[in-house]
């Protein structure tokens, strides 16, 4: 069975996460061999996922951790010895 582009797009997220079964993966791989558009969609989606995981994109506010642990310390101290 040959799948079309729309079918590939529907599974692209699961494909990236390795959550498609072997048969569907093989069909998608075959499609990607010859479809420049779907290859580009896959690559760009994958790039977005990789970038999102970079710690430099989302950084905690400066001093967040220090303020938090001061509060936690105060809470622990309030508990008594």
């Amino acid at each position, binding site marked *: 069975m040959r799948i079309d582009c729309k079918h590939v797009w529907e599974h692209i997220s699961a494909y990236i996460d390795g959550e498609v079964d072997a048969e569907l993966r093989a069909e998608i791989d075959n499609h990607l061999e010859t479809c420049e558009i779907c290859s580009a969609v896959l690559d760009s*989606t994958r790039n977005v996922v990789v*970038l999102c995981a970079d710690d430099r994109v989302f950084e*905690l506010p400066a001093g967040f951790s220090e303020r938090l642990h001061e509060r936690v310390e105060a809470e622990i101290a309030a508990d008594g010895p």
Partner: protein
Amino acid sequence: MAGSPSRIGLLCLAAWLATFWCRVTAFLKELLIGRTEGKLLPTVAACNLHISGHMTPCQGLYSPMYIFFARILFDRAKNDIEPDHESPCRELEGRSCRRDIVSPEQRFANLRAQTRSLTPISMKNAPNPEIEAECIRRILAGERQLFHELIRPCERPIFFLLMSILRNEADAEDASQDAIVKIYRNLHLFRGDSQFRTWALSIARNEGLGRLRKAATRREDSLDALSEDQGGDFTPAILTSWREVPTEALERQELAAVLRQAIDGLPEIYRNVVLLRDIEEMDVRETAAALGITEGAVKVRLHRARALLQRTLAPRLKGFAPQRGKLFGWGKKDESR
């Protein structure tokens, strides 16, 4: 002396060498370009066999010399060809679009590893449940200072989940502190049915939603208002290849800002899933438990969120692609398409 037999012989030899050079070079280029998937493994022996097919019996006497020249020519032709081998024109010629030598999974794993290696040690890795359980036992037994270490890996996901819900940094920080204090006070209620981080995130999420209810400032795209059947265009952006991950450009705040803006623009139900799955790299089960939804809903929302992000980001982030491909070899040529 024009008719000197020795001069004629030299001219013939020169002409023969020139022909030989052109033929072998052309053959090697053809051989290299004709291969796909980077399997460029012609051997000197193969070259020699091919050349032998074009040789006269007399020329065959010089096969050691052919092997020697073939080796030199092969190296030279390979160097000449490698830049062209990356050409996107291969697609137009009906050849394979995919140039991966490694599998997609391996490439993705390599990318992740590479991205991770550029960043400080991440706390995103799933904590060890046994160590957590021991830590909790000791905290409850009186070693309360250990709570600092227990909660440290959860700080990021808690803050960003609350940031996603509350949409305000100061509110998110305040809510994070309150949530973590609640976690500390209710630690004895943690039964170990799920990971500690999942349980902590559930408390943080409830804290965020509770604040929203109190303030009656829930956004129109709140969890309750948006269903899985929500309409929307999840068709990806059609664009030419953008294979490189511009991780180097993350040093420039503008790229990070573009990413944050795109994620911030997602409807909340999608944003929360992206946050836990792709930013904090939690698995589907843990994400579902933290958000109080099914694993199927996590997958559907993640797929839609990624499609929306791809649609928004791909055309913009392509401009951040490196000048010359380091990962997959698609450089400036590709950008001009």
